């Protein structure tokens, strides 16, 4: 611990001592006000619901695309005709014929 940290700790300790008033009960009417506010809050708007739906759909589409790309990459590597040396050999034999 450097000198500043040591001094800062002393300061924080002194600040803690002075700020030791523990919170008591909620002021009169506070809970009623909060609850009334909550109950008058409008539910989620159509735009918000639409937005969350679109985001989920976008996520699903991205996932499907990723799976297709991965599948395409691996399946094409097993496709022997896609190998250039084989393709050239087939083309050469066709020319010779």
């Amino acid at each position: 611990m450097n000198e500043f940290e040591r001094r800062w700790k002393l300061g924080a300790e002194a600040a803690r001592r002075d700020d030791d008033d523990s919170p008591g009960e909620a002021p009169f009417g506070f809970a009623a006000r909060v609850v009334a506010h909550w109950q008058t809050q409008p539910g989620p708007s159509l735009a918000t619901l639409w937005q969350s739906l679109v985001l989920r759909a976008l996520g699903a589409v991205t996932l499907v695309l990723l799976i297709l790309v991965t599948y395409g990459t691996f399946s094409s590597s097993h496709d022997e005709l896609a190998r250039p040396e084989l393709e050239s050999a087939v083309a050469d034999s066709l020319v010779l014929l």
Partner: protein
Amino acid sequence: MPPDAFDVPACLDRVRQQDAAAARALVDHFYPLVIKIARSHRPRRMAEEDLAQEIYLKMFTRLQQYHGRDGVPFEHWLSRLAVTTCLDALRAEKRRPEWRWADLGDGERDWLEFFAGETPAPAPSDALGVCEVVEKLLALLSTEDRLVITLLDLEERSVAEISQLTGWGVSLVKIRAFRARRKLRAHALKLQKESKL
């Protein structure tokens, strides 16, 4: 009803069914927890009760996301929600204050010189001054830095607890605290330099 007898899961079930009396009981029961967090991490221009109200409204709106079966006590879930709400409120307060040496009172100056000093010196005795200067120095930090120092040094929470409250990893909490203290020192030195001009 004594605090120990408060049945949180039953109350939550009733609140989910829009029971206003249960909602009021829930607000009253968790008021000390919520107001303590709001008081420690509120923006300068926001009343602690307004921030507490914002926390509660968020709690009611997101109550469906809390499932007691996950093993997370409701207090922990609410504390985390309160901390993130305070962080958002602090972030929304875009302008950070710029303190000058001339803005500080005598007690605050004594503490600031003590923080910035290198030579052995006794800590000043002005308790009010230290609260003011600590708050002013913290206000100069970024929202995240301020939060980590308040939780770690002023509220004496453990690193694991802060990690749980903020969602940051343990190493990130330690690094952030280390860097925040370095910034505090730089601010203290800068302010002290002004006194010599």
